[in-house]
């Protein structure tokens, strides 16, 4: 029997075109079935989640965007009676008060100085945080020594070079929030390294002093430290030397952050294998050189995520200085809330939303950065 090559009516001669996979096994339908409705319990959870989203998201969108008032010159613009509908966030108020939120009562004509400081600070932070940046040692010197001095001269003023003096009681808003947190990090990092070294020192008295300082500061709330700095610092200084109102909480915040920084750095010191210490010693390096050249560069590098996390905490904690009467962002928002020009039922929530958004963007950005660094550092450990 010969094999027939003749076409048979019921056999296809050519392959048919590719079919899409069944809708229920691939694509978004399958994904939804698998991830959201795989079982009865799962379906209930999904429905609860949907209900929560329904409760939160549409009112929020309506309040912040759809019903919001974007322009206006005073409270009249944000009153429901004048607008003729329900009124959401009064963004016109934020727009009108924006420069107060950023600079506080800093004199109008001198605000360019603050802008320069912002730019200089941004350069310093970018230099330090970008791990592949050129000359990072120089960057550290710039951020921890040069920048604070220049910023102080610019912000405070120095009549010898023609910069009018601006009293710190006029500083406010985001400027003060940034000043407090930058001073906190600039002081606390070196001090924290010293305390961490002290805690791991062989010398019993040095160790004791470091342990007591670290544990006491970590055991009390920041607010008590701030009260202490506010009321007791003038007592401890001789005679009629009364420290600047802004300087007092700065001292408190810096000391407080140092204790937390010390614990982070100590973690890094402990993570360095003993062989590194022994290797350095066998090369004949003394204690300080061993630390400076071998141990600290490695230890600080692995605790960058920890340092950033401490900084996030510090950044959020700077809001507490408003309780001791410093005009940080929160305090400036609170002050504008009693301003009759903008007194409406929605002003308060709008102000809080603005402040919340500012803190969220800063903190979330930093936490993303710290996660990225962590991943990058972990990549080197993978085998």
């Amino acid at each position, binding site marked *: 029997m010969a094999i027939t090559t003749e076409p048979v009516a019921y056999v296809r001669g050519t392959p048919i075109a590719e079919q899409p996979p069944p809708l229920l096994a691939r694509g978004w339908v399958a994904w939804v079935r698998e991830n959201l409705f795989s079982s009865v319990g799962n379906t209930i*959870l999904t429905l609860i*989640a949907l209900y929560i989203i329904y409760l939160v998201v549409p009112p929020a969108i309506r309040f912040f965007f759809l019903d919001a008032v974007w322009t206006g010159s005073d409270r009249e613009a944000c009153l429901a009676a004048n607008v003729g509908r329900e009124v959401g966030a009064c963004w016109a108020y934020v727009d009108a008060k924006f420069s107060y939120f950023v600079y506080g009562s800093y004199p109008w004509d001198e605000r360019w100085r603050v802008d320069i400081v912002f730019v200089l600070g941004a350069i310093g932070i970018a230099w330090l945080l970008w791990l592949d940046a050129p000359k990072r040692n120089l960057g550290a010197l710039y951020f921890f020594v040069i920048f604070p001095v220049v910023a102080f001269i610019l912000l405070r003023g120095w009549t010898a070079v023609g910069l009018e003096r601006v009293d710190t009681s006029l500083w406010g808003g985001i400027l003060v929030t940034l000043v407090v947190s930058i001073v906190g990090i600039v002081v606390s990092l070196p001090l924290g390294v010293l305390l961490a070294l002290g805690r791991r020192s062989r010398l019993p008295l040095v160790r004791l002093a470091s342990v007591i300082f670290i544990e006491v500061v970590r055991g*009390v709330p920041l607010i008590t430290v701030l009260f202490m700095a506010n009321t007791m610092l003038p007592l*401890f200084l*001789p005679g009629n030397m009364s420290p600047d109102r802004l300087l007092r909480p700065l001292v408190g915040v810096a000391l407080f952050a140092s204790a937390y920084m010390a614990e982070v750095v100590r973690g890094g010191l402990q993570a360095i294998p003993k062989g590194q210490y022994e290797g350095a010693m066998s090369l004949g390096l003394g204690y300080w050189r061993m630390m400076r050249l071998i141990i600290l560069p490695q230890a600080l590098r692995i605790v960058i995520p920890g340092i950033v996390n401490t900084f996030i905490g510090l950044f959020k904690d700077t809001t507490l200085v408003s309780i001791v009467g410093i005009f940080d962002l929160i305090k400036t928002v609170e002050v504008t809330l009693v301003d009759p020009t903008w007194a409406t039922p929605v002003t308060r929530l709008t102000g809080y939303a603005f402040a919340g958004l500012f803190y969220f963007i800063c*903190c979330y950005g930093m936490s993303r950065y710290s996660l990225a660094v962590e991943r990058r550092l972990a990549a080197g450990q993978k085998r």
Partner: protein
Amino acid sequence: MTDITQSTSPRTSVINDPRVRGVAYQVILVVVLAFLVYEATTNAIENLRRARIASGFDFLSTTAGFDVNQTLIPFSSSGGSTYGDAFIVGLLNTLLVAAIGIVLATILGFIVGVARLSSNWMVAKLAKVYVEAIRNVPLLLQLFIWYNAVLKALPNPRQSYEVGGGVFLNNRGLFAPQPLLEPGAGLVIGAVVVGLIGSFVFRAWARRRQEATGQQAPIGTVALALIVGLPLLVFLLTGRPIAFSYPELRGFNFAGGVQIFPEFVALLVGLSTYTAAFIAEIVRAGILAVSRGQTEAAHALGLREGPTLRLVIIPQAMRVIVPPLTSQYLNLTKNSSLAVAIGYPDLAQVFMGTVLNQTGQAVEVIAITMAVYLAISLITSLVMNLYNRRAAIVER
């Protein structure tokens, strides 16, 4: 003849001898610290003398000239309460908000932490949004939002929300029925205690029997019967000795019932939701730290989902969870001092705020306040270390 002994004691300069240097460093440190303390003390004494502020702790027995709205012990300025009493009032209020806050934060934190690991995409994302939104906004701002924008914006007592069961919510706080104990109520409370002890004893017995014979006992049902059923039975048998006083609208405010102040509610809600976000991350990390092999091995042994979680995963996760959880509890306690910003009468607000302003004795007041927080921190970490030692891995 050359001197051989010289080679055994190396001729280094005294300056380079590490031991001498160590002693020198420490002497310098002590001298500097002693100088600072001396300077601070003499200056403080001089400044206080000039400002005519008394020193010492006598002020604690002086009559306080102010009232506090929420007190756990009787306190009134007219009744001759002292600054010492004010201290106790503040301390108790701090402990109250911290204790309830810790319980709520733990419950919410565990729920959110488990939800972040849920296989349900929407639940996991929702939990993630919660954690990120809460963690990245300062607690103080959140307290302001809860207090000023949420609770103060509630309607006045005449238009208050009725939550149901005699619970009312308005801008003066939360009004709830207050249990009134009549004679015989002691028996009901006693029954609760007996039920609790009984169920613990039963659980220990059941566990021992299971290890000896392999037979399981219905622990859950028996405990439920003992803790809920027994008091209920006693309650009915003794003729319902507990009555409730319901809050009623009289004039412009409520009378009767128990009033929970909005400051307390705001602080409690703010602290618990904030800390819960951190606890959720700790719980997630703890569960992820238990390797998948443990789950698979448990399944291979024939354990089902529930027992796998209860007997294999959670005990191991707890080892990772407990140490950071402790520090979160401490953070919550320390953060309760933010009460000062919204006027809840805790230790910081009553003692470091009002008492400090009235007496002017900053050194004593702040030292006492710090010592209290320090003591709370040390005691908590001591207790948690004990627990941790029990839960820690026993290595060979």
